[in-house]
């Protein structure tokens, strides 16, 4: 295919105006297992499906706390994600040391995007092969951002990335108008419902392969523990977005 002529490195444009190496890096994100985020006026929830390399192995964690007010969920190369995670944590620590307050979320995402873009404009570097969903709360409000290997970043009301994420996004498109005023519990149930759309037929959600992280205006970032996850997965049977509309 003609594509192969222009995809050797980041510093070569294709005649159609594409940088193929960057596009290939975005493919790596699409191969990662699904993670999604959704926000209301008060809270942000991150849900991800954890992969188990083999029966003998543990499950790969996909959500990392950056600071009390911020966390990320990753899809793609975990090693690259660790680098960005370390960078974000360091920046938050330094900001806190200098100003004794939390790093504004959008600003940190901007810094990550700058860092990512840098890697797309050099002959000797490659883009980061990981997409992040950054959930955070600052005086400007409740935020959910997505970053790409290309160095772009976007703010979302809800978003899903990774493998089979389109199914989750379709669920979001139908129901995102309810999220703004949802309670934390409703938000978590929406997130789990969306993930359920994206799993394979023979898989099922359980407290081992699902990871849920929550963040609120007065709630520091925490993961739901195994018991809480079991409870929510049970509640999922009775939950339907229609019932939420009837309540309002």
């Amino acid at each position, binding site marked *: 295919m003609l594509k192969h002529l222009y995809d050797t490195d980041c510093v070569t444009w294709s005649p159609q105006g594409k940088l193929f190496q960057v596009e290939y890096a975005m493919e790596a994100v699409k191969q990662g297992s699904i993670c999604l985020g959704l926000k209301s006026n008060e809270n942000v929830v991150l849900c991800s499906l954890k992969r188990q390399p083999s029966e003998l192995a543990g499950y790969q964690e996909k959500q990392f706390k950056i600071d009390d007010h911020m966390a990320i969920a990753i899809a793609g190369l975990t090693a690259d994600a660790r680098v960005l995670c370390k960078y974000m944590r360091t920046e938050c620590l330094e900001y806190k040391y*200098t*100003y*004794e*307050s939390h790093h*504004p979320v*959008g*600003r940190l995402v*901007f810094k990550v995007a700058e860092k990512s873009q840098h890697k797309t404009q050099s002959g000797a570097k490659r883009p980061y092969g990981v997409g992040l969903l950054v959930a955070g709360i600052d*005086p400007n409000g409740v935020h959910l951002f997505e970053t790409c290997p290309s160095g772009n970043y976007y703010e979302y009301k809800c978003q899903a990335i990774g493998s089979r994420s389109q199914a989750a996004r379709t669920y979001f498109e139908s129901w995102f108008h309810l999220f703004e005023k949802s309670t934390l519990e409703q938000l978590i149930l929406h997130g789990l419902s969306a993930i359920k759309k994206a799993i394979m037929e023979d898989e099922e959600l359980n407290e081992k392969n699902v990871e849920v992280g929550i963040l609120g205006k007065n709630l520091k970032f925490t993961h739901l523990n195994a018991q809480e996850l079991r409870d929510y997965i049970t509640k999922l049977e009775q939950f339907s977005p229609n019932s939420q509309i009837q309540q309002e």
Partner: protein
Amino acid sequence: MIFNSEFSGQQQHTTQPIVTGGSVIALAYKGGVVVGADTLCSYGSMADFKNVEKIAQVSKNTIYVSSGEFSDFQQVVRELAKIDRSALQYDDGVHPSPRDYGNYLARLSYKRRCKINPLYLQNVIAGFHNGERYLGLVDIYGTYLESNFVTTGFASYFCKAIISNYWNENCTLDQAKQVIRECFKVLFCRDCRAHDVIQLAYVDEQGTHIEQPERVETKWDFSGFKNRANEKLHTQ
């Protein structure tokens, strides 16, 4: 003499201030904070620059004044304004809060103190952010304190009693201003390096308001002065 090694290329450390500003008094009131400073820069014991407007607005809702070496004050104003301006490049409308400035200045002062080359200042940062009043004091060592009232220089010795007796944190703006004017009256009488022209500024929900300099009322027409009744005349 501190100018001895000017040509030897050695770095000088601040050992004494040259041009100094006077005391600063800042009080919280119901709905904001008000700061007062006189308009004098002294060159040692000479009252050299008599109408210096010292209250600097570093951002929309933060003001900064200090007593001590005036060139250090000017440099700190540049440093703080730099932070505010560099916030613009992120395009997110987020600006540092008054507390952020206070903490930054505390760390800056502490760093300089550790190098034995201090910013020869006692700093006051005042502001109003998200419905909360803020008053911070950073001294020459980098000590950082937040409080409802803050004084620097000689005001710390002469004026705290006046403030305790006539001010509370929920008084009105006019009451707080009056207390500050009283304090500067006393300072003018007792502090050799004080001046009777002061400047007030306050920060509230609407933003920063820096007023024109005003002269404190002083009274010199005591009958004892005019009649000189108690003077003993020296006669041969």
